[in-house]
């Protein structure tokens, strides 16, 4: 953990002895540092590109005067520290710059596209959780202590294969089968409820396979834990052992990885959006990269990064509520 985080954490924990205060302070401290890294990285991105980004964007045939004017407008002729300052000022005021291709404010472009991506990632995560928790827990109970080896083999190999198919390929397969062959759902676009099915399913399925494997493994290790033996020694009925003693502990461990998956899903939308021509941030960033519209790329990267950081924070807090020990653990 960085020095700044430690400082914030110490300042707060000194004030009160509650583990929560220190825990929240540490997490917020970490968020602030990560945020700073993210903002700086997105600012530097445009400067790390070899050559002149404006010339790259406008093409070699563009007149020198136009390029110079555009550079001036983007503030690229100022010293780096001043540009950084302006960038930070702009961010605080919600100004992410202006698109080089459409001349629209980047904030407006993102505002238009964000809801579609948010819906897609959120629904897909929900579906993945709804599939993986019951399936994984059930498989864990069924195959505990090496029982039912054949069921275990079938489950493991199916889940490995499903997990190995990347979302966008699964999407292609689903489009071919359910949209082209059967015609049940539209091939692309975002309109009625039916148009959500294929994108959401193709994003959720792989994650569900991975998550359910994790839930099962965690369930197995929890079922082998000493405290589950204690619960059995108390002669509690099986359902109580599974639901009250085992499942919450298995989910605590799953949550950490689940959080990573959710943030991976945020990025995974990029590919799936392109398969389905989904009008979200993912298709925007790709077309902007290809069009070398760097202010938009900068803005979208920032938004994606922010989403990831928020997901991580939420996961940490949820973890703190589920497992009281995690609030006192130093990371």
């Amino acid at each position, binding site marked *: 953990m960085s020095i700044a985080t430690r400082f914030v954490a110490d300042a707060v924990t000194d004030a009160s002895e509650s583990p929560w205060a220190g825990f929240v302070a540490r997490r917020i401290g970490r968020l602030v540092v990560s945020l700073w890294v993210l903002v700086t990285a997105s600012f530097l991105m445009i400067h790390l*590109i*070899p050559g002149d980004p404006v010339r790259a964007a406008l093409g070699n045939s563009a007149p020198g005067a136009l390029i110079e004017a555009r550079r001036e407008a983007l503030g690229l002729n100022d010293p780096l520290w001043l540009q950084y300052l302006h960038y930070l000022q702009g961010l605080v005021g919600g100004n992410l710059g202006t698109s080089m291709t459409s001349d629209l404010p980047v904030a407006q472009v993102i505002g238009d596209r964000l809801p579609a991506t948010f819906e897609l990632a959120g629904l897909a995560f929900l579906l993945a959780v709804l599939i993986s928790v019951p399936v994984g827990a059930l498989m864990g109970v069924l195959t505990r202590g*090496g029982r039912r080896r054949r069921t275990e083999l079938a489950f493991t190999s199916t889940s490995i294969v499903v997990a*190995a198919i990347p979302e966008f390929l699964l999407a*292609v397969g689903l489009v071919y089968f359910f949209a*082209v062959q059967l015609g049940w759902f539209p091939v692309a676009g975002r309109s009625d409820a039916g148009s959500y099915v294929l994108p959401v399913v193709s994003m959720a399925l792989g994650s569900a396979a991975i998550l359910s494997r994790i839930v099962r493994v965690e369930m197995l290790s929890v079922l082998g834990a000493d405290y589950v033996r204690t619960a059995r020694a108390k002669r*509690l009925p099986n359902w109580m052992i599974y639901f009250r003693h085992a499942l919450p502990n298995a989910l605590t461990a799953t949550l950490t990885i689940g959080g990573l998956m959710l943030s991976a899903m945020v990025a995974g939308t990029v590919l799936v959006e392109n398969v389905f021509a989904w009008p979200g941030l993912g298709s925007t960033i790709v077309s902007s990269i*290809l069009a070398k519209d760097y202010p938009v790329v900068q803005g979208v990267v920032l938004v994606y990064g922010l989403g990831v950081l928020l997901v991580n924070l939420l996961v940490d807090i949820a973890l703190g509520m589920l497992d*009281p020990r995690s609030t006192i653990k130093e990371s």
Partner: protein
Amino acid sequence: MSTSKTAATAGMAARWLAALKTPVGAVSAAMLLSVLTLAVLAPILWSGQAEEINTRAILQGPSPEHPVGTDSLGRDLFFRLLVATGLSVKLALAATGIGVCVGLVLGAVPSLLSRRIGRLVTAFVNIAVAFPGLLLAMFFAVIFGVGQTGAVLAIGFATAPSFARLTQTLIATQSERDFIAAAKLAGVGRVQRLIRHILPNIAEPLVVTATIGAGSSLLAFAGLSFLGLGVQPPAYDWGRLLNEGLNDIYLHPMAALAPGLAVVIAGLAFNLFGEAVAKTLGAPTPFAGKGAAPQRVRPTAVESSADVEPSTSSRESSAVLTVSDLFVSFPGPAGPITPVRGVSFSLAQGEAVGVVGESGSGKTQTALALAQLVEYPGSVTASRLEFLGQDQLSSPSPAKRQLLGTSFAMVFQDPMKSFNPTMRIGTQLAEVAQRHQGMNRRQALARAADRLRAVRVPAAERRLRQYPHEFSGGMRQRAMIGMGIMGNPALIVADEPTTALDVTVQQQVLRLLSTIKEENNVAILLISHDLTLVGQVCERVLVMYAGRIVEDLPATDLAERSLHPYTQALLAAVPDMETDRNQPLAVVPGRPADPSNVPAGCAFASRCPKADDHCTREDPQLVQQEDGHRVACWHPSRGTGQRVSVELKLPAAALQGEAS
């Protein structure tokens, strides 16, 4: 150095070969091999066919001539698919190589450079790891530019943080081990420590992760090329083919599906192979062998094998627990392992009995079997198992459950792990009363507070609302005992209840158990490796060796009147406050018996100074010697530890003992 390296590599090779013997390992290895072969050969063999333009056969569907069809220039897609293997695999491997190298460096830096730099690198890696690989890849793709090289660098740098994190964690884990401290003391420098001691111990997980990483890189590359950010025409990889095929998915689905399938198969080959190896790397599960067929874990009734009396306790009429011919066995790689081999005894009301033995003697399995807590795939058989007069061998019923739940208490060794970490202590105590004594939550919590007071936990009401981690070790063990007396127990089985505690706290817990026994007339079965401790608390002691009771004697007889050579040796081998400092300690030669390979005859014979041919041939039965004293030995003779120590005093024997 060379020997250590070859041995390490040999061990590694052996484990990777073992992976090939599993079905998944064999299939995935074959897949991987064919993908790699194709990657090398296909561009050499079929580049011509793949690039041959045929304007008369544009955008055709599958046909015998073109199994996958043709593209917009009439080029044969099947050959293009095969040839694309080369570039796809090459780029994936290049990206993985970059990722692994950068990751290794970033991961190893904290252990080599100063603490401050190390901390900075670690912080940076931790932040980078939080961002998904694809996002990082796009970030780098912008910087390095759209195209093949840019994409290789982008994916390489995007995989580096997670690899660095893994390397860091692995190095940190190894660095804490004592042999690193020993190497430091021997004057081995930082770099040498890393190369000689740490890397060989973490190489395998790193290689496995790199293999799986290559699969992920392949998929990521397909993704970038599909988006148009990776390979640019006229070059082509699978992602590029997919990109071109998707536009016409209505007309020519094969043009999109075939490259997709190729990506999935190649990715799977890397992934599955990595997983298969990873699986064999984990220590083999102890009871995963074929051995015996799965059996019921609930104790099964068997005919009484011999005319052994189950007990010699004169108070049998009031027995709390009676067991005869108890066997516990688990399937092992070479036939069943039987940690408990025919244990018979009984426990009278309010009696404290100790079970003593070394690790592997079967004492814990005996306790678990009596409590009917042996886990699958273990199997438990007995000719008789009665608790409070109730037969425990017939099928379970709610009534039995309730009786066990209220009258049979267990205290486990590790109070740290034996409470559920996510539930409050109060809830965990209360649920016993709610379940078995028909109390509501409020009553149950009141009872729990009362019980915590009974085990002298201060501020009981406040403690009820706390979580286990807020208790110290001794307090937790008290709470565990408190949970046992939520009902009205007739028996407390305590399995090494003080081993995890400090000496002064040990005494507190033992005193507490004694108090409860006296006040409530509870029988106690105390399992321990410490003979003196058991002798202090218990009235009767059962000494176990290799799954059997070898001696059953009153605690008062322990010091002077034990009959079995093993009991005598145990007493003499452990120094106490009276041991003569000028004499070497008595030594039991050899190792404790291995439960998977118990010798014929008396299991102790190979370590016994009195053993003769008869002992190695025939197993002695536990027979009554005098009132309340049973022993399983062909040559029982009264002796104290001191006498055996004289017999065994030869220093040569002492040194050879375990070595030979």
